């Protein structure tokens, strides 16, 4: 019997329940209701892109794209001097994003390196070393660590951490990129640790058993088999952590010192992109060049984190496909 015929017969039989007009209308109304909600959520997502870019690109009408990199200005003796400064409120405003970018990376890079060392270690411990029963208790602890509000971490680094590192290392500025990056790493370590744990956990047990069967020790199995197999997942977790470090606001606002220094010295105060928006948006007059340039920083921030997240997601998706044996 043809499939179509079968269903037709089934529908025509006396057991088939006919769906009434009323029910059908109700069903389609309910579907419409959910579709409206889905569309609204999508509209919000699109609006974020649209508004950010609409406001940010207005900055380019008044401030050239090149002005966001540097400003050429003549000094007293008539020589042209190239300045990389963020001074939007001065008489002669300077809008160079270079010091802000440097500040952002000077806090985010060290934070990511510290967090990678500690976070991947913690992830390996959770997935491969810890007693499974003990792990049931430890994993929620990592999640609690991740749930600490960033303003709390900023606060504790400001009142305790900064003094501690001041006495220990005697830096040039009490609040500096290093203190901020330690604070940032508190945020990223749980992210890297839990994603690394997920990646290692998704490696099939057969690989471990095969490795043990060949006479490998536990550490040889971890370092030569499990970690290489989970490499893409671990690197995705590091990318996501790096993205979070770039986008984090409160810790860098409270601990990095907020001076737009053009420096590679990690013990000097720096100013990040996020902290600049947070500190200046409250006082800026709406519609001014300064106002639009803050939105422009938002675009830069959005673009960097968007691509980091996208790459991480592509890697994770590929890994999922590969690991479904």
């Amino acid at each position: 019997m043809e499939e179509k015929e079968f269903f037709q017969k089934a529908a025509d039989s006396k057991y088939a329940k006919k769906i009434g007009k009323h029910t059908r209308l109700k069903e389609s109304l309910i579907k419409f209701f959910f579709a409206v909600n889905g569309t609204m959520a999508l509209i919000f997502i699109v609006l974020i892109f649209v508004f950010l870019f609409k406001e940010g690109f207005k900055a380019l009408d008044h401030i050239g794209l090149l002005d966001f990199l540097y400003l050429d200005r003549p000094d007293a003796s008539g020589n042209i001097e190239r300045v990389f400064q963020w001074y939007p409120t001065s008489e002669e405003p300077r809008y160079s994003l270079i010091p802000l970018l440097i500040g952002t990376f000077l806090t985010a890079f060290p934070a990511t390196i510290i967090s990678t060392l500690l976070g991947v270690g913690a992830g390996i411990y959770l997935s491969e070393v810890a007693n499974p029963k003990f792990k049931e208790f430890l994993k929620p602890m990592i999640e609690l660590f991740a749930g600490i509000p960033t303003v709390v971490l900023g606060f504790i680094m400001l009142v305790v951490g900064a003094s501690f590192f001041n006495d220990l290392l005697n830096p040039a500025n009490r609040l500096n990129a290093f203190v901020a990056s330690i604070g940032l790493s508190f945020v990223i370590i749980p992210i890297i640790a839990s994603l690394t744990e997920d990646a290692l956990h998704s490696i099939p047990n057969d690989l471990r058993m095969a490795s043990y069967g060949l006479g490998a020790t536990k550490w040889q199995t971890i370092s030569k088999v499990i970690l290489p197999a989970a490499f893409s997942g671990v690197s995705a977790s590091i990318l996501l952590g790096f993205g979070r470090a770039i986008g984090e606001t409160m810790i860098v606002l409270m601990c990095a010192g907020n001076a737009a220094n053009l420096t590679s010295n990690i013990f000097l105060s720096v100013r990040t992109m996020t902290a600049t928006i947070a500190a200046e948006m409250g006082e800026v007059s709406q519609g001014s060049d300064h106002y639009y340039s803050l939105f422009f920083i938002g675009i830069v921030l959005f673009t960097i984190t968007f691509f980091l997240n996208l790459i991480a997601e592509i890697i994770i998706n590929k890994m999922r496909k590969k690991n479904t044996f």
Partner: protein
Amino acid sequence: MELKKRKIDFAGFLSLGIVRLTFFFLVLILILLLGKIFIEGINVISLEFLFDEPRNNMTEGGIGPAIFGTVAVTLLMVLFAVPLGVFSAIYLNEYAKDTFFSRIIRTSINNLAGVPSIVFGLFGLGFFILFIGKNLDDVLQTGLLFGQPALLWASATLAVLVLPIVIVSTLEALNSVPKSHRDASYGLGATKWQTIKNVVLPQARPGILTGTILAISRGAGETAPILFLGAAFFLPNLPVADLCIGDYCIPMINPTEQFMYLAYHIFIMATQSANPTKTLPIQYGSTLVLIVLTFLLNITAIIFRYRFRKLLGRL
């Protein structure tokens, strides 16, 4: 045949030791951090501290208005975000076909979760205050009522911020309800909505609740987006207005006013207070309250998820 005895692997032993140490180093730091806040904060905490308003230029008194503001903002945020998030997740998982378009929506929702929170603040300012608020004022002829930073816009912005969390966890919860249960329901002659209402949603409820609670805790701890959306340093009055129907008046949250916020309060006290050392005990006290609040929420979420997984294990 005798098995060859392996040599002791010193390098491996050392490496495993380092991995163990790393983890316990982290736990130690966590304990030190929380312990410090707890020890310094517990002395300040009293019923008075929790309910009183700040006095004497913030050097005395409590954090009552800040707690009130936090609860008010998160309450409104949940009202905005949870229905929208849950309904759109139901649409995505149950109704929408797996097309290129729906995959784009999923990807952008995942990506939205990684957008820096300060960018949401910019969005709130540009969209809610300057676009919707200003236009509302023009249309309703209310003068400057909606077109300025206020509680309403802060919670709307936080709602957009936590929307991805709600959607993703609801999707996960709906997705883990076995397809066979749906088929069984259809086989009994139930319609799609009856199946969703009676079979899918009851099973997905703990997962949805987990997402909601995580959203609340995220909102209560988030500071950056509300910095310029209506959080105030100090307000003598609570953002409350009487809603009168005839002669009968009940005090309601007034969404058009500014508000105090616990997380913002900590930030301001720590960085911009006139006398940071004198207010340090109060800062520790506020921090302890915020931590306890978010931890209670997170622990509840973890318990809910644990029970959800156990329920799924039984199926």
